């Protein structure tokens, strides 16, 4: 049995589809089965992009009314699955919402999860994912051995987003069931940090600053250089934790994945957790006083 039915956990910001979702839909569309996008909230204007990237069907939960997506979306997914539309694989982005939904669903369905993957292949009956470990120096190949659906999460930028699929994108509503105590968390306010210039994960040039800058004021140099190069400023976790710059600047395992034409690392040691976020850069310039810095 090959893959007949593949779901992608889909996200949109208003009417704009998330890039991570489009990447996953595009990959799903090459795996041979029919592709469904499962949206947290309403698909709205993003439905067209989902269809253009391969979604024949789009399930939407409708407004989550401030509740976090984990319990609500996993409940909606479970309801559709027990209603008879059971996917072979569900692909999630390895981001906050993706992993919360996947984690909840894994318990509801009693299925294992494979996380942080960067590739998926179907080989007859088996589905294999590949995951870089030890800062990307080794690639682990794992297969699912139990019952379907298989739950897998992929790091952003693992796949190219490819439009032009021209799928139907039929929108179907899929409401969450009664959440009980699990629905006890409510978002009461949303704060968005203002940024100018290109987005960190889309910029052609990224200038990253680390602890080697010495102190918070020196980060101005990074901002200035990024602006001059029409790029985006980024940061290591060390200086995010130290409060020099907000978390939204962080590059790495727990931050953003960037793949610019040029990544300039100033005063960054190149810890494995930082490397996984930028090793896909086409060119890397490291400015460091330590010749051995990676």
């Amino acid at each position, binding site marked *: 049995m090959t893959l007949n039915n593949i779901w992608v956990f889909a996200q949109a910001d208003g009417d704009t589809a998330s890039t991570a979702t489009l990447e996953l839909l595009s990959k799903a569309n090459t795996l041979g089965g029919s592709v469904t996008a499962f949206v947290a909230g309403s698909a709205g204007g993003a439905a067209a992009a989902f269809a253009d990237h391969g979604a024949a069907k789009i399930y939407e939960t409708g407004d989550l009314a401030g509740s976090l997506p984990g319990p609500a979306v996993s409940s909606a997914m479970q309801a559709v699955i027990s209603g008879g539309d059971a996917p072979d694989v569900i692909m999630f982005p390895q981001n906050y919402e993706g992993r919360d939904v996947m984690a909840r669903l*894994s318990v509801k369905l009693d299925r294992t999860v494979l996380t942080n993957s960067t590739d998926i292949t179907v080989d007859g009956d088996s589905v294999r994912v590949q995951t870089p*470990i030890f800062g990307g120096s080794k690639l682990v190949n794992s297969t699912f051995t139990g019952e379907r659906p298989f739950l897998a999460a992929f790091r952003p930028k693992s796949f190219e987003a490819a439009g032009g699929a021209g799928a139907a994108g039929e929108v179907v509503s899929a409401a969450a069931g009664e959440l009980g105590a*699990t629905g*006890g968390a409510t978002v*009461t*306010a949303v704060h968005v940090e203002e940024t100018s210039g290109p987005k960190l994960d889309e910029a052609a040039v990224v200038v990253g600053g680390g602890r080697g800058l010495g102190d918070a004021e020196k980060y101005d140099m990074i901002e200035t250089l990024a602006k001059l190069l029409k790029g985006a400023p980024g940061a290591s976790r060390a200086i995010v934790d130290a409060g020099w710059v907000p978390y939204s600047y962080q590059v790495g395992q*727990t931050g953003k994945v960037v793949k610019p034409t040029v990544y300039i690392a100033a005063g960054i040691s190149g810890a494995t957790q930082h490397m996984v976020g930028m090793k896909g850069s086409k060119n890397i310039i490291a400015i460091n006083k330590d010749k051995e810095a990676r």
Partner: protein
Amino acid sequence: MNVIVCVKQIPDPALPGELDPSTNTLKRDGKLILDESDSYGVEMALQLVNTAGDGSVTLVSMAPNDEVSGLRTALAMGAEKAVLVSDLALAGADALTTAKVLAGAIGRAGDFDLVIAGTESSDGYTGTVPEQIAEVLGLPSVGFAKTITVDGGTVKVDRQTEAGYDEVTCTLPAVVSVTAGVVEPRYPSFKGIMAAKGKPVDTVTAADLGIEAVSWAQQITSVDDAPAREAGEVIEDDGETFNKIVEFLDGLKVI
């Protein structure tokens, strides 16, 4: 206010990690230490209990070979007691099994208002265990907390997001996962280290928690070396190196 903190004990991340050649899973047979990612949760719990003026901090951990080194560090910081699940049958467990086991250990640890975990561990970093524990226990959860305040029957959390942060209110009991930097973990004092030696650690097996058959539906089939990136050119700054950088950027047509 009783807080339970999940603390993972891991191989020292400063040492190069090694895979067991027979199972391809991470070798965990050496000495294990407290995952730094969980020291923030321990500190947060101690501060919340201190602010509340009553209650205690209990640790839960799953680790091989009755390992307690990491637990002793957290006990030395001020936690009161610990439940340790150590069982050969759990070697190489997946995240879901880990969550079921920890949920069982939490049940054994007694009444609680809040469970705190790290957002992701340093060695396995699936980042799914806290939310899975919450689902097993039927509780709400908030991930990626950068501040936590408890106010009567609710907890208020500033939750980091990709674009900034959200303010979230959540009913108790709940599971909250914290990020690094949420608080500054204290160093154990000498007195704390001495006291930790006498604090109770309840060591149990999976069966003691009522978890009988354990298995997981994933298998590592092979491990490949990643294609190596070419070594870069090293240029020592003679005061004029910026010219070379400008030239390089010019060649790439980004300036």
